[in-house]
């Protein structure tokens, strides 16, 4: 398959060959793990109160990709999820809708129906999620099916094996091909599975690789491995999208996924966004949370701010 440069920007020549791509990715500034984690931890000590907290909770709700990715998923379960995405809190219609529901490709049609007429998008984890261990043709077919069924967004996993083996151009070409299969309308989120990439240097390289190949979003993880989104890997990816925009003028979104369960955690991530890339990324077109259980905690905190009292799990809906 021919290599096509998706973006006619200043960096298009770095993807000319495997060796130019390797040289470029390995020429990116290194990441000092201790320093990165210290910075992420220090931003985690920001104290977000009152009006800022209320704003952050609504913002976080609007950024949730409400997700169900189980083997046992059924159209009924997806319909319930869709209804919740549109009206997360039936007792308070001022609650913003979530950004999207995220499902397996065969559930896209059901999800589309469930959120019809609302602002909620349907995202689908195509490309042989979560392992990505399938021939490219299979992955592309997966994507085409999902898009044909109405998916607005495709969450693809990269081939970590190829990446770790240093075959960067193969990974690049796959992303380019998937982006092409997404067509003009579906946005592409590229999942790195950072827990498997293991080093921060790799995460920065993968971020740039994904962006060079035309990713609309870069995403930490599938939620299916031990280490998923962390403040540190998200901070690193935010730095990457910031630097990429500075060099190419192209803005790319960021989506931490997996393991973000509490409002407190979500607000810490918003602080990372606010202080690393700023307001340009502080809406759900550019930042998302991949989460299933986070929403209920956000809703309980929201109710608490409204009423001054904590309610409990029975005052929010189960999916």
């Amino acid at each position: 398959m021919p290599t096509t440069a998706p973006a006619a920007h200043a960096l298009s020549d770095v993807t000319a060959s495997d060796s130019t791509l390797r040289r470029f990715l390995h020429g990116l500034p290194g990441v000092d793990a201790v320093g990165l984690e210290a910075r992420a931890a220090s931003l985690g000590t920001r104290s977000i109160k009152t009006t800022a907290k209320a704003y952050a909770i609504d913002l976080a709700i609007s950024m949730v990709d409400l997700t169900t990715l189980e083997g046992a998923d059924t159209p009924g379960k997806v319909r319930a999820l869709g209804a919740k995405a549109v009206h997360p809190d039936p007792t308070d219609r001022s609650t913003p809708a979530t950004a999207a529901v995220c499902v397996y490709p065969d559930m896209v049609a059901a999800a589309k129906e469930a959120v019809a007429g609302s602002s909620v998008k349907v995202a689908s984890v195509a490309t042989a999620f979560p392992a990505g261990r399938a021939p490219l043709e299979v992955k592309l077919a997966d994507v085409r099916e999902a898009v044909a069924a109405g998916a607005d967004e495709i969450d693809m996993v990269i081939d970590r094996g190829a990446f770790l083996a240093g075959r960067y151009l193969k990974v690049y070409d796959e992303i380019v091909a998937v982006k092409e299969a997404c067509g003009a309308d579906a946005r592409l989120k590229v999942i790195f599975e950072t827990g498997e990439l293991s080093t921060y240097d790799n995460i920065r390289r993968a971020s740039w690789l994904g962006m060079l190949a035309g990713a609309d979003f870069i995403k930490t993880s599938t939620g299916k491995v031990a280490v998923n989104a962390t403040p540190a890997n998200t901070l690193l990816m935010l730095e990457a999208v910031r630097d990429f925009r500075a060099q190419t003028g192209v803005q790319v979104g960021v989506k931490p996924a997996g393991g973000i369960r509490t409002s407190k955690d979500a607000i810490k991530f918003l602080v990372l966004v606010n202080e690393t890339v700023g307001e340009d990324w502080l809406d759900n077109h550019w930042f998302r949370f991949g989460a299933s259980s986070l929403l209920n905690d956000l809703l309980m905190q929201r109710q608490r701010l409204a009423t001054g009292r904590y309610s409990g799990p029975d005052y929010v809906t189960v999916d």
Partner: protein
Amino acid sequence: MNKEKPASAFAYAPAPESRSVVDIAPSYGLFIDGEFTEAADGKVFKTVSPSTEEVLSEVAQAGEADVDRAVRAARKAFEKWSALPGSERAKYLFRIARIIQERSRELAVLETLDNGKPIRETRDADLPLVAAHFFYYAGWADKLGHAGFGANPRPLGVAGQVIPWNFPLLMLAWKIAPALATGNTVVLKPAETTPLSALFFADICRQAGLPKGVVNILPGYGDAGAALVAHPDVNKVAFTGSTAVGKEIARTVAGTRKKLTLELGGKGANIVFDDAPIDQAVEGIVNGIFFNQGQVCCAGSRLLVQESVHDELLDSLKRRLSTLRLGDPLDKNTDIGAINSAEQLARITALAERGEAEGAERWSPACELPESGYWFAPTLFTGVTQAHTIARDEIFGPVLSVLTFRTPDEAVAKANNTQYGLSAGIWTEKGSRILAVANKLRAGVVWSNTFNKFDPTSPFGGYKESGFGREGGRHGLEAYLDV
């Protein structure tokens, strides 16, 4: 989201730490022989909060007679204190350390009020380190025979200690913990602008049941410090502060049998090579010069950047400085607090003006300064050369001078071309370069890919006009032992 975003979408609401956790009395005395007492001549002075100029309390001002009284109390206490088994002294030190931990929120708020530094720093940096120092030296108290100074090292006697205003409680811990662990007794003079936390520490000594006279605290001005240093019955002098005062002390002590350690000024070089982890280097630069408003003797106040990454690094640094939050030090989200005193503010202002006059380019982020109190915006100077005053004189404020270099040799030559030698930083992803460069730097501490990291186990001290002797670690014991 389709709705129009408010002008400032995510402006953090104020998150002030409560002042009610600390109870500041309207007046305080000197702490001599386990009791609070008035100064012999009845003099008092006021201590103010640098962020608001509010008077916090009135404090007795020690004079020569009080110094004499305190030294005599310490001398008397020395006999019993030094005769205690090390394990007994350790118990007191452990007890003090635990009380500090228990009262750390109170002490953090107090320190922020009296000094002007952000609560984020007193809470997350100062107080944990203060407790850690007492714990660490408590551990040494019964193991002095194994510290490498012979089988039975002896204490020196009465230690006269004079500390600065930039880390009032931490400098107290650095001085008092090793002195007590080794069996010495102490007369300590805190700085005139920040006496309160030392007086609270006096209360902690009483709470811990420390024998009378082992620790004496004398708030006062330079004259009290001079009297303490000159007192014939003081056996050991330890001073942290300005180089000018350090030189005076060295002259006073010269020819006597007093042991002396000095920890003085600095003009630390923070060297960034072109293969550095840029984002973390930016954090390290910020931490190196804007921690405690740059009022740090080991601050990385000279940034040496390899020319090939100068523009890129400066862009990142300026963007990062624009996110610093300056304001109420008691707000948990404040990064930059107030300058400690009007006098210090005037000095910083004068040196920054000198930098401009000598042709360096000045830059500060857009930043509103509060109306009352002593404030100085974070400031960068680019185009600085070795010949500029701001590259040579210690500014002791949030002012960073940026210089460039082309080769590692040039970086080392420029870093060492200073009358000081306290700290330095190296930023590179190449391990062999870290070792090669660190070995050539004439600085007491060399941090690599980090800056301003402290730990009680690690010795700290200077070369050249930054002083001599080491504090912290096993080395820190030596200054208080007859070896």
